[in-house]
């Protein structure tokens, strides 16, 4: 049993890291919005999904225009990535303006319900468009970098089996690292980042210090949504097939990652994402082996939800968050 688990371990680690990187970047979107508004942006998973569709649509348009073969692959990739980020970023600002800002002073329950509504709306609108354009709402896009590299882990230790790593996995990891470092620098080193942290700490005082709170919140939504949308493109490239309902499960897992890392804490979200990705891959590969085949990979989603529930009950402030006392 142990040898079986060890043999698949290199492959599991590679796949888990790629998945974890996706979760981590999406989780940042949840955590940023929560940090600043204390509000769970339930529609964030759908923004991720919209990004995946926008990127795929961009590539498909390039192909039908005959441009895809003419330009280098990395340029097409970058183009799809940037288009998706811009589109979802603007979408995020629009959603905030229309559905969340009028409710900023309303009870939390009401704004959460509005977010649930937005999430349903986005799912169906994307389904319409995909269905109208391609005749099916499940879309298989163009994958640009899908050659496999062999990682000879068996030469490291003979117990390990060899792992295969997609070229795109490297791109996913690199892009995730660049995005996360860029964001970290932005939040900690720039004037806008200072303003953002100030608004998160105390909105009223920040507005007295001549910070335009509405602008900062819009910017937060832009960055969070753009990160989610960009990750959508990475996801579509990594797994090939997308449908309008991927955002829900993935969003839930990314939210779990954000809670695990301590919601409101950007570095915590990154760590939580990687951890959840690894746990999920480990569970889906090894649950069957551990239980003698009675419970298999189909319980991997149950695992993520269980982690969420356990964390919320026993350590609601997460691994890196600060516990808050409730004020009367």
């Amino acid at each position: 049993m142990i040898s079986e688990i060890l043999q698949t371990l290199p492959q599991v680690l590679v796949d888990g890291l790629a998945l974890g990187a996706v979760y981590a970047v999406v989780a940042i979107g949840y955590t940023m919005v929560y940090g600043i508004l204390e509000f769970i942006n339930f529609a964030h998973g759908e923004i991720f999904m919209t990004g995946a569709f926008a990127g795929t649509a961009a590539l498909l348009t390039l192909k039908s225009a005959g441009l895809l073969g003419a330009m280098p692959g990395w340029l097409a990739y970058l183009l799809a990535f940037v288009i998706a980020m811009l589109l979802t970023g603007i979408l995020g600002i629009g959603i905030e303006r229309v559905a969340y800002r009028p409710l900023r002073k309303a009870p939390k329950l009401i704004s959460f319900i509005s977010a649930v509504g937005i999430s349903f709306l986005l799912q169906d609108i994307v389904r319409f468009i995909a269905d109208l354009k391609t005749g099916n709402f499940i879309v298989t896009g163009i994958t640009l970098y899908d050659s496999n590299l062999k990682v000879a882990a068996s030469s490291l230790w003979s117990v390990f089996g060899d792992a295969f790593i997609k070229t795109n996995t490297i791109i996913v990891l690199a892009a995730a690292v660049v995005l996360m470092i860029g964001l970290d620098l932005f939040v900690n080193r720039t004037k806008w980042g200072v303003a953002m942290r100030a608004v998160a700490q105390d909105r009223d005082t920040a507005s007295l210090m001549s910070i335009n709170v509405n602008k900062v919140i819009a910017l937060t939504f832009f960055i969070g949504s753009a990160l989610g949308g960009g990750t959508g493109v990475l996801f579509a490239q990594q797994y090939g097939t997308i449908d309008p309902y991927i955002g829900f499960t993935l969003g839930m897992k990314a939210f779990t990652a954000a809670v695990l890392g301590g919601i409101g804490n950007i570095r915590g979200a990154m760590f939580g994402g990687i951890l959840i990705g690894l746990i999920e891959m480990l569970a889906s590969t090894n649950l069957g082996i551990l239980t003698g085949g009675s419970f298999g990979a189909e319980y991997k989603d149950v695992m993520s939800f269980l982690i969420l529930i356990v964390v919320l009950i026993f350590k609601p402030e997460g691994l890196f968050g600060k516990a808050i006392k409730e004020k009367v």
Partner: protein
Amino acid sequence: MNKWIFVLRQNKLVLAAVYAVFVIVTALSVYLSDKSVVSFLLLLSSFLLLYYTAFPNTVKWGIAGVLLLIVIPFATSGGASHESYMEVVTQCGIYIAMALGLNIVVGFAGLLDLGFIAFFAVGAYSYAIFSTPQVSNFISGNLFPLSGSWFWLFILLGGFIAALFGVLLGLPVLRVKGDYLAIVTLGFGEIIRLIFNNLSKPVNITNGAMGISSIPPPNLFGFQFTFPHQFYFIVIAILAVVLFGVRRLEHSRLGRSWKAIRENEIAAQAMGIPVIGTKLTAFAVGASFSGMMGVVFAAKQTFIDPTSFTLVESATILVMVILGGMGSVPGVILGAAIVTILNLQVLTELTNWFNQLTLNGIVNIPSALSPSKMQRLLFGVILVLMAIFRPNGLIAAKNRKVNEEKLKANLPKAAVPIGQSAKQSGGAFK
């Protein structure tokens, strides 16, 4: 216009006559026409009119009973679409009971539950498993599978098991608040669905994604309930019990505790309300309504599988509560009826109409835009619009008013000296 409303308010006899004419005309038009969605909806809207009439409450309940038990079954029996009408009304009844259950959790106690359909699933599966050969996979013996005459016991049992699950869910999540609670309950709902979807091994309990088929219909002393117009009466009976329960609970000590927790949990605790127990009862009572209707649903469909219990179903019930008005019993009934009829009648009729138009070549509407697929879009629009413009719903919840004069007049004379002695003792402390 205003003058007419004034006359109707003043003169009960005129009001009764106008109302009776409305009911008779709509009932006759339903009876005589082959299939007319409009006149059917008008007949159902007589309940809404009844709510706004100036009759005393007992009279209203009486009229509603007559409408439900005599007028609607009779009026719909005229044409070939009797069963489809009855199906719609029966589904309405099922959803109204579930929405009333969710209303206790969300509306009264203020705990947002996004996995409410899980309790419905628990009720449905509990009857389905024990009344089909599925049960012999894990319990041997000749007692199982149970026959249809056990259905009546299972209504109670399904409610009880669902309530148990409600407490089970409630216990761990009580420390979680607000929108976190919503996400945890959503996760719980998904876990239950995934488990039902996969529990075909190691022991085949739920038959996995294949679902459980040929569930026996209810049997009362040899009488089989198989058609919607027979299930209609079962649903009405359960609904009557649920309504009675909700009306009694709402203004009871427990109901007031729920509302106190909703308004301010810390203040409620300071007032001596046991927060944990009160929240748990909210979960249990709400879940039990859903579980009872789950049993009815399983028996009516004779086939269930996990796809009937997805997040969209949970959201459907939430939309009913939000649309009608959180915490408002008449509102929630209205919301549930509107959403169910929208789903079952209006959207399907529109789809059929569009298909006809496309077939005749008048306009070309691609199948991607067919209204029956637009559920999510509609729900999304309803949720956002209601949240922004009418957070209290169509019929806002009203707190019961207390007539102070009347209370004082009814106060026993002995109460006065106590007040005086309190004053005196207060003086003594000074």
